């Protein structure tokens, strides 16, 4: 089955709510990543069920970011299998991985990464544009979902850190991805905004979203359904 066929058969029916409960969104087996002689990840195996909210935790250098990069198809494992929403993605070409990423993954970054010269609404529409067709009404709906409809015409520089991160989450949501990957989403936020963003992620989980949160904050990890711990590139027992 080709990538496009798989994507067609996996079409979701609701824009902001996930469907097809009961299937694994992430299934990795014996995953490893080496940078020359250095093994960043070794024999990592776990799965994530649809609608689950899990945290990947571990100290600095434990391989969290490397694992996140592989999960988001921004990097490739040097060994092992990775199935995303039923598709074996590790062996796909770069172009095919790009297609899978824009169709199935929503990314939330610690540093927000909003285009500085586009408004909040346009930043959300940009993800739509690369996915299919930019739709202003849908993008506005996504901003409403994160409580920022009134700030739609503001540039990132005119928004607070918490607001920028909520725009980032709206951008991750807009294409109804099978998986939301959030890399330290509260790392640059104060306590109030941290609470706001985590509350938003919990609400998304309640709506049936599958979310993988990478964090080193134990308090945040406790608010997820399950914690996957890494230690020296391996799953901690």
């Amino acid at each position, binding site marked *: 089955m080709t990538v496009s066929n798989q994507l067609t058969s996996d079409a979701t029916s609701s824009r902001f709510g996930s469907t097809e409960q009961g299937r694994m969104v992430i299934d990795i087996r014996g995953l490893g990543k080496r940078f020359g002689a250095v093994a960043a990840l070794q024999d990592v195996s776990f799965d994530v069920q649809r609608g689950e909210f899990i945290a990947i935790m571990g100290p600095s250098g434990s391989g969290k970011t490397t694992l996140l990069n592989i999960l988001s198809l921004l990097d490739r494992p040097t060994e092992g299998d990775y199935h995303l929403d039923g598709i074996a993605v590790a062996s796909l070409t770069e172009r095919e991985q790009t297609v899978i990423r824009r169709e199935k993954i929503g990314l939330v970054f610690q540093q927000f990464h909003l285009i500085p010269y*586009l408004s909040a609404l346009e930043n959300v529409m940009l993800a739509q544009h690369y996915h299919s067709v930019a739709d202003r009404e849908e993008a506005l709906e996504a901003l409403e979902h994160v409580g920022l409809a009134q700030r739609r015409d503001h540039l990132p520089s005119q928004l607070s850190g918490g607001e920028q991160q909520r725009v980032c989450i709206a951008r991750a949501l807009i294409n109804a991805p099978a998986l939301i990957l959030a890399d330290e989403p509260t790392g640059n936020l104060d306590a109030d905004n941290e609470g706001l963003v985590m509350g938003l992620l919990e609400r998304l989980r309640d709506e049936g979203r599958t979310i993988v949160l990478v964090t080193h904050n134990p308090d945040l990890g406790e608010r997820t359904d399950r914690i996957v711990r890494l230690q020296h590139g391996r799953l901690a027992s």
Partner: protein
Amino acid sequence: MVLRMLWRSFFEGRRRKILAAATVALAATLITTLFALSVDVGDKMAKEMTSYGSNIRVTPKADAMPLLIGGVDYNPLKGRDYLNERDLPKIKDIFWRNNIVGLVPRLALPATAEIDGTALRISVTGTYFDHLLPLPSDEGYRTGVRDINRFWQVEGTWPDDASESQALVGSRLAARLGVVAGGTLRLRTGDGADGPLRTVAIAGILTTGGEEDDGVTVPLAMAQAMAGLPGRIQSIDVSALTVPENDLARKARRGPEALSSEEYDKWYCTAYVGSIAHQIEEVLADTSARPIWQVAAGEGAVITRIQMLLLVVSAAAIAAAAMCVSALMNTTVLERAREIGLMKALGAAPWEIHLLFVGEAVIVGLIGGALGILAGYAVAQGVGWSVFQSGVDVRPITVPVVLAISVITVLAGSILPSRAIAALLPVEVLHGRR
């Protein structure tokens, strides 16, 4: 969305884009100036070169057949055969008549200059100074050495062509005789001391740097009267606008019969000095029209070299602009690496990212090119007026050509930055590693 992004992103890093546009504008200015001058320089240089003398000499056919023995021409007919002055208008009736910018007949005769007991054997030459030549199909054609030989310098005034007593005395002769403009000089024609004597008024002292400096130059009619040869001339110097010589023209030097029929047609219908000379021979029976190759070749060589120089300078300007744009775009790509990484992470196809940056570059190229065209024509006009004393024609073709060169320049400058965009990995820029 693409246009909206292009519009918004174009105003990002404005200073750098203004700098890039200014660089392109400078190159476009230079290219426009050189292009305008290069196109015009052929005509202008050809006109300018005509002021350094004629490039075709027409003589009776008998004169053109030297009988050389030991390097000395013993042709008994040399100087004894003549052309008819009334045939001069025929030269303005050839295919390339509009390229004939001047023609001056000459008739030389020996004479003796006498003043205060001093007698010197000299040559008196009759010619047109500023003569209205009647043409059957036109009002007339004004021509003469004043127009053709602009390097001739006269201290005093030019003689009137209708005058039978005014003359120009060559500067070296004047020095030997101790005469000045405004004085008089007696000229005795014929070989003996009893020839007819004529007193002429010295209208001016002539300096040419040539043999005219040792003789006396008079109106043609006066020379004909002195020689007893009314309506006769010995040679015609023709000044024609010509195109630079090429292989075909050089092949034709061996004679038109050396050319194939197709080559002959092409040669005949091109304003080579040789083909114009050939056409003059066709209308003037029993004459020999010979290109003065030093002048003709000099014109061609100068024009070709100037155009080559313009080409080289333009190429250097384009290369410099492309390198500058490349450096500026590379800096832009480095500065906007996270933006590029984000687009890739969001699923943008490589061409969509290139489109954004190349689109910005094209806009910069078009703005720079448009400004350069305006500035270039202004400079070209200035150069035209200061060097050629005339403006430079604005040619519409310049606009698309220079705009295209400007855009190609920025696109060439975008090659390396585009490779940098392609090589950029989102994973390297999105997690704070850069």
